């Protein structure tokens, strides 16, 4: 079952310390077993760890960052715009990855490589420019402190065409803020895990790419036919037009009604004023255009403009659901323009909206409860719904000023300085929880706890299904669903496509096995691909356990076990430690890991062998 196509079989490795860029071949075994995207990233990060004897400072020059689209990225496959950014995360100190949509991945592939790896540290602030013939490291001292959008505009001017695609960090990344993101294609972010800080620590402000090569596809005609089937299914779905119009903003209403919307830093799970920050409000007064990632007919991105009031003139893509919930209801902010502005500000400064919203929410609650004093807040009080104070705090985080300097170190930094903040911070492994309140569904608690990157919903999102169908689910059903999600969802990241057509419109996942087979010429069933994805999960688990994480880190946040939801349909819900422990034990068994959650020696052996 050799791989016939789908890859250039080349990786560009950049050593910023030496100033050397080199194209190196990618071994066939790596391609077969790890597919691409997050799979490639996990393996290369693992190899790098082994090389450094498991001693890696996430912000040190030795932390290799892997930027990898997948074999389907940029082809005619629906929503195939994804690129993974993989490295040891400065937020958690463990395995980290984040994926960005847009068109950056296509452009990167069109330079004739399957992935880009970067290590070392440039002597001064630089950008990496690459096209199909050359790669060069160009010093750009003039970009220091520039926001993401400013920098992207300047780079497009400098490289003389706006056909180049740019991945850039903002001031937050430069200042090594551990929740800094990478902004691609103006507004598509690799948000989580502090990947922006990794680039910042390497003195790399941006990556500018321009490519024009044909993507290798084994059976293009077959791929188009298969893709057309998927497009037709999506087009005929009853919610398709809703997706184009509202995108993820439609989740606001749903989440509030279902009692899973983070509100007042997860004190509540419904927001009485949700109608002021929902999709309808956006459509009524703010949306001025659609934005889609490559080859995506759903076009979930909404470009919005504030036309009046304090935030007049703000243009940004979004907010989408996570941003709107974390910077809106989670902070008690009920003014859509303010949420929009905060989202835009996060994009400009280059910080993750989920982590930022969570940290700011914790600060407000911490101050309310007396864990933080006015002195801790630099003498500037903050309360629920105080949008001006929120903006100020976002600036302070990105610039590491005052309290921002502690918040910039993420949950771990905050807890180190104020241990009692552990009670109000909703996080796992140091990564702040996404915008779905897990107390309503114990499978979601397990999903957050066992996610390799921390409390993020990208690995498994079982909450809606459990709420709708899972009243009488057994432990086993819950664990099985979490593991299935944790195998399937990362597979999308490995293939380089978006999961929304599947999770939101119910596109049959079997399509993806056929896409893979048609692109690579190496037939594989969905089961086989899921097996490879599951292997990658074992691998990222190994990365984490080797770095000292274990059962103690697959934790239940204090709030989830001790503070019942106050109001709404899920009022009173908590997930107790005993239930959680039971689920976790069963989960480890099903994974084939030991009681401490450590994969077996044979599994480890299979990754250390030459590949």
């Amino acid at each position: 079952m050799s791989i016939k196509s789908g890859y250039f079989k080349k990786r560009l490795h950049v050593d910023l310390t030496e100033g050397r860029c080199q194209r190196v071949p990618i071994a066939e075994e790596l391609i077969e077993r790890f597919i691409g995207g997050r799979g490639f990233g996990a393996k290369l990060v693992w190899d790098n760890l082994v090389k450094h004897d498991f001693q890696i400072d996430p912000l040190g020059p030795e932390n290799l960052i892997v930027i990898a689209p997948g074999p389907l990225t940029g082809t005619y496959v629906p929503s195939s715009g994804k690129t993974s950014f993989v490295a040891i995360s400065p937020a958690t100190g463990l395995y980290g990855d984040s994926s960005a949509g847009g068109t950056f991945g296509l452009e990167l592939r069109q330079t004739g490589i399957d992935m880009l790896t970067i290590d070392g540290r440039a002597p001064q602030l630089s950008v990496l420019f690459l096209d199909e013939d050359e790669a060069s490291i160009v010093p750009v001292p003039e970009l220091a402190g520039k926001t993401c959008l400013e920098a992207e505009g300047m780079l497009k001017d400098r490289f003389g065409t706006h056909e180049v695609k740019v991945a850039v960090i903002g001031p937050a990344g430069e200042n090594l803020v551990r929740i800094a993101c990478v902004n691609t294609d103006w507004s598509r972010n690799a948000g989580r895990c502090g990947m922006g800080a990794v680039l910042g620590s390497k003195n790399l402000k941006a990556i500018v790419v321009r490519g024009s090569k044909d993507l290798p596809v084994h059976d293009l005609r077959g791929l188009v036919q298969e893709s057309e089937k998927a497009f037709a299914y999506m087009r005929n779905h009853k919610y398709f037009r809703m997706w184009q119009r509202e995108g993820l903003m439609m989740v606001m209403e749903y989440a509030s009604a279902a009692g899973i919307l983070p509100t007042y830093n997860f004190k509540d799970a419904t927001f009485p004023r949700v109608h002021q920050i929902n999709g309808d409000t956006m459509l009524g007064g703010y949306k001025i255009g659609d934005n889609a990632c490559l080859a995506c007919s759903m076009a979930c991105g909404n470009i919005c403009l504030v036309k009046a009031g304090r935030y007049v003139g703000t243009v940004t893509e979004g907010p989408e659901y996570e941003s709107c919930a974390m910077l809106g209801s989670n902070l008690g902010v009920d003014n859509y323009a303010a949420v929009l502005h905060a989202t835009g500000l996060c994009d400009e400064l280059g910080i993750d909206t989920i982590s930022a919203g969570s940290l700011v929410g914790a600060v407000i609650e911490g101050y309310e409860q007396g864990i933080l004093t006015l002195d801790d807040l630099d003498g500037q009080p903050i309360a629920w719904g105080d949008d001006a104070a929120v903006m100020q705090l976002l600036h302070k985080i990105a610039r590491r000023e005052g309290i921002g300097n502690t918040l910039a170190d993420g949950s771990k930094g905050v807890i180190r300085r104020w241990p009692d903040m552990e009670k109000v911070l909703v996080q796992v492994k140091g990564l702040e929880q996404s915008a779905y309140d897990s107390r309503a569904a114990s499978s979601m608690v397990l999903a957050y706890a066992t996610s390799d990157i921390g409390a993020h919903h990208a690995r498994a999102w079982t909450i809606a299904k459990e709420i709708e169908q899972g009243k009488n689910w057994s432990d086993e059903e819950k664990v099985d669903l979490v593991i299935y999600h944790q195998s399937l969802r990362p597979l999308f990241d490995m293939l380089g496509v978006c999961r929304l057509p599947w999770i939101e419109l119910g596109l049959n996942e079997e399509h993806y096995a056929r896409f893979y087979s048609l692109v690579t010429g190496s037939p594989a069933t969905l089961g086989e691909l899921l097996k490879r994805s599951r292997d990658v999960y074992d691998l990222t688990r190994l990365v984490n356990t080797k770095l000292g994480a274990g059962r103690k880190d697959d934790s239940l946040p204090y709030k989830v076990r001790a503070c019942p939801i106050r109001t709404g349909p899920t009022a009173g819900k908590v997930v107790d430690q005993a239930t959680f422990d039971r689920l976790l034990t069963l989960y480890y068994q099903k994974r084939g890991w030991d009681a401490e959650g450590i994969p077996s020696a044979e599994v480890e052996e299979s990754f250390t062998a030459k590949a």
Partner: protein
Amino acid sequence: MAKKLAVVPELCSGCRICELICAIHHFAAANPKKSAVRVLVTYPHPVMRLPIVCGQCKVPLCADACPVGALKRTNGVVRLDTSGCISCMKCVEACPFGAMFAHSGLDYPIKCDLCDGKPQCVEKCPKGAIRFIPEQSLGEARRMNNVLSYAHMKEIEFTEKGEKKSIRYAEIGKEEL
């Protein structure tokens, strides 16, 4: 009846499905850089996604610029005779709309041929942003928009870093987006 390509930029989401399918249809290549249609994206001032399409001009400046007469208009379509082309790319520069393209892997420019009367970009656009309409209906979308603009055109002023700026926008209703 002669039909032409028309675009409604307000509807375009920038997904580039038009580019992908065009290159597949004409060059059997997964490569949007070999497409005869391109989506131009500007952001954030102004926010615009504009598909650039060939108008099949009756006085084609691309053909005028061709020193060997390789471009000819027949039955309403300006076609390129690739065997006669000398690859000077003067046509690409001559098109007032930038609707012809060059690619380093091709010995001749990329020219829209309306896919023998069934333009794939139109067929596949998920937003209806590119249309294939009778010539007498050209400008329809623009006229429609103008009506909307007259009805709702607004201008707002704001200050950015001490500099006064203004944005004009059409207040488009929920249903159009």
